[in-house]
């Protein structure tokens, strides 16, 4: 992500990760790849941001991890949502919607 505003992207990245993992477990590589694909290469998450974010969220208890086997038949770490994570996702999604709605109101009014 080429950030113009680090704070916003911090929380935004976490939101995206949470959303992606809602649908199933993935390993780090897969998450990054998915964001890239889903946004048509508009958003590219660099590993330097992704992994620290994943570890942070692990810390905060929003993600749970297990070691499994990847597509390449290698040991890989898979991330999934915890119950706290799901709650967080709901809250963040709601916050995001109201935030963008408010901003749009102003942008459109001019």
């Amino acid at each position, binding site marked *: 992500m080429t950030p113009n505003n680090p704070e916003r992207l911090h929380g935004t990245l976490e939101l995206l990760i949470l959303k992606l993992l809602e649908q199933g477990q993935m390993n*780090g590589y897969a998450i990054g*790849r998915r964001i890239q694909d889903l946004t048509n290469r508009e958003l590219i998450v*660099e*590993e330097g941001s992704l*992994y620290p974010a994943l*570890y942070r969220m692990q*810390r905060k*208890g929003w993600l749970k991890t297990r070691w499994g086997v990847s597509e*390449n038949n*290698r040991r890989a770490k898979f991330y999934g949502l915890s119950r706290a994570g799901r709650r967080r996702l709901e809250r963040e999604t709601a916050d995001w919607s109201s935030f963008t709605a408010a901003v749009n109101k102003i942008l459109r009014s001019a």
Partner: protein
Amino acid sequence: MSPWVSPLWSRLVRRLRSVLLSRSVRGEIERELGEHLEQLTRQLMEEGMSPAQARREAVRRFGNLEKIRSECLAARDVPARSEGSVLTDLGHDLLYGWRMLRRSPGFAVIVVITLALGIGGNAAIFSIVDGVLLRPLPYQQPSRLVRLWQADRLNNTRFENFSLPDYFDVKEGNSTFSGIAASRVGNVTLTGGDTEPQLILAGFATHDLFSVLGVTPIRGRGFLPEEDIPGGESVAVIGHEMWVTRFGGDPGVTDRSLILDGESHRIVGVMGRDFSYLTNTPQVWVPLQAGPTSASRGVHSFRVIGRLAPGVGLTQAADNLSTIAAALEKEYPNDNLNRGMWPQPLRESLVGDVRPALLVLLGAVGLVLLIACVNVANLLLARGQVRDRELAVRAALGAGRARLLRQLMTESALLAGLGGAAGVGMAVAGLRLVHWLGPSVLPRQGNVAIDSRILAFTLVLALVTAVLFGLVPALRSSATDLQQPLKQGTRTMTSSRGSRRLRRSLAVVQVALAVALITGAGLLIRSFWRLNQVDMGFRADGVLVLNLVLPASRYPQTRGDWPDFPEVVAFQRDLLEQVRNIPEVRAAAIALNSPTASGWTTRFQIEGRPLPTDRQLEEIRIRTVSSGYPETVGISVVRGRHLEPRDDQPNSPPVALVNEAFAERYLSGEDPLGHRVINWGISREIVGVIQDVRFMGPQAPVPPAVYPTFARMPFGGFNLLVRTDGNPMEVLPQIRTVVGSLDGQLPLAGVGTLKERRSAQVAQPRFNMVLLSVFAAVAMILAAVGIYGVVAYGVSQRIQEMGVRISLGATRTDILRQVVGQGLALGVIGAAAGVAGSLFLTRTMSGLLFGVGAMDPTTLGTVVILVLTVTGLATLLPALRASRVDPVTALRVE
């Protein structure tokens, strides 16, 4: 393949793992990132790259692996906000801090050593201050005890001892003391058992000494009144050390006895280990066995202490004593005219002299600690910027400022703790140096040691130090704009202007403090040098000194027979004759006092002189000598003749020498020869005037003194002085033989050279000087390190700027000049501040100086030059490095 587990459990497990098994966490991260790399490579290969290309591209895209690794590690280390009690947090912080230190061992070592110097020095000095000044005296209610002094108004001295009749009169007539006791000390020969005869210090005390002090022997008892009368039973109370070394701690020691000066004394008690009395504690006590008529009122050799009665204040007692003194003056004008009496709190009399010096040392070592703290704070500030990234991550994880502060302060406490531990080691070594400087330089020196009180003090000091040096950097680090470092790819090496200014001002403060200290040390060094330069009047090289005490049991010295002590005089004559026969001996003499001892005073008269009434009772120094004294100690006779061996004969006419001060004071304008001096009932003819000798020490004026001959004023205890050409100790065996042949039971004591004794005279100033110089040297080193640190860091920050300047044409010397100039500027400001400060501070030291003013310009000038030179050298290294910067490497953008 572990199944899904509940978040709480996995959180705990994770935390445990991260704390205890960081290696496995690293491994985990390695594996995960490695897998990601694999998958990325595969993807790139699918897009058409060759395997090698794909791999390279994948690695490039990944960016800085180490950075990611460390961020993940940092993310793992901080527990979620809701967890953790204070104690587990503390343990966690300590562990984390320890790990951080291990990662930068160089930094840790420098900090710990710096702190050790500061804390250790303080511990050492505090243990001295505690042992000497603070710790209560080993008596009951010591604040009620006073030392009684007499004051000689004519000679303007205030610290004279009592005579025995005066003591008894005060004891009888006072209304303000609950008890008064007198004592004196003397050397006695201890014989018996299977050991050689020994000369030991004995205390002769009135029976109530122990009860006035409020101490009880740990075994047996003190003296009974009936033992303290003339002709009473010979008993003794021994000191703790003698009980242990000579009697092996025998519990039945009270059935045994001791032979002192040939007389057997029954042991009735043993004193406790902590018991000490005045400056030289005797090894054994015997009753004084004296009454009011046992000694003359004119001989002032007794130390008197008293205990104030309950409810009585010091001024009341002083008034009471003045009244008694006035009455005695009227009643005994011959002895007591112009003699006052006054009380001094006992503690004051013991330590009052050294208090100023010790306080100066305490202040100095406090300054050193301050400098050390400033140094460490600077180092922490520099390091803080390196850790900004890690702290930023933790802040982003929700660690509040307070939490970060706590972590950083814990690390500071850890550093201070390590520094304190190392400091204790240094303090122990330091105290050993102190004891080596002189076993009795300080009063109560036996109390000076590292014990639990000092350790507790050190612990508190370490904590205070941690706050001092840790707070500012911690506040700064926890408050930086923490989002900044998380930006991609930025090497956040910008040191803000504010922090740079802070570090530079700290360095300036260090230099200022160091200047103040070095100035103080410099003044003391000059004082000491001046002291040593003082011409004492005699030549100390090559002279051997020793004490002999002839016991009254074999050499009768009864008061009634004086001055007829034929055995004493015969021994001394034979001794001199045989010692003079030793080939290496150039000259030998006997003297009551060596030229380094102050001796005592007694009243005198000049015959035929109608003395004005106020001069009738003047006292002068009496320093009995044998023939050969002036030659032996290397002084000249300026008028008249020397004493000759014929004057050593017991029936020779009584004669005496006088010193120049005497001739000046009492016989100026006349020829002193032929006048007669009367003391103790004997009239002596002055046959010669000798050169003044500074026997009162290098700083005091020389008082008038009379030197009667030994033969007509004998004493059982005396010094033998022997002058040789080479090393005087080489004749010692032969002297032992001579003494042994005259009397096999006579021990030699106090053997040494006159040079050693001369040196011991200045032991106290030497002590002050050495200690303060050590502190000043440490301060200088620390300040130099501080300047070096600031300049080196500044250079490393501005490598790029240097590169630009060089590529634009600046020469090496330009760069050198710039960097050194900046460093010197700091030094100059610091030196100026230091000089201003020291002008103010050294005034507190003026009591310790000799021959040097507190604002001595030579010293100040030398110190400033020294400090600037050192500062310049300290900046030279980083300056050289800066000037050698290769512009190409410097300008390469990372």
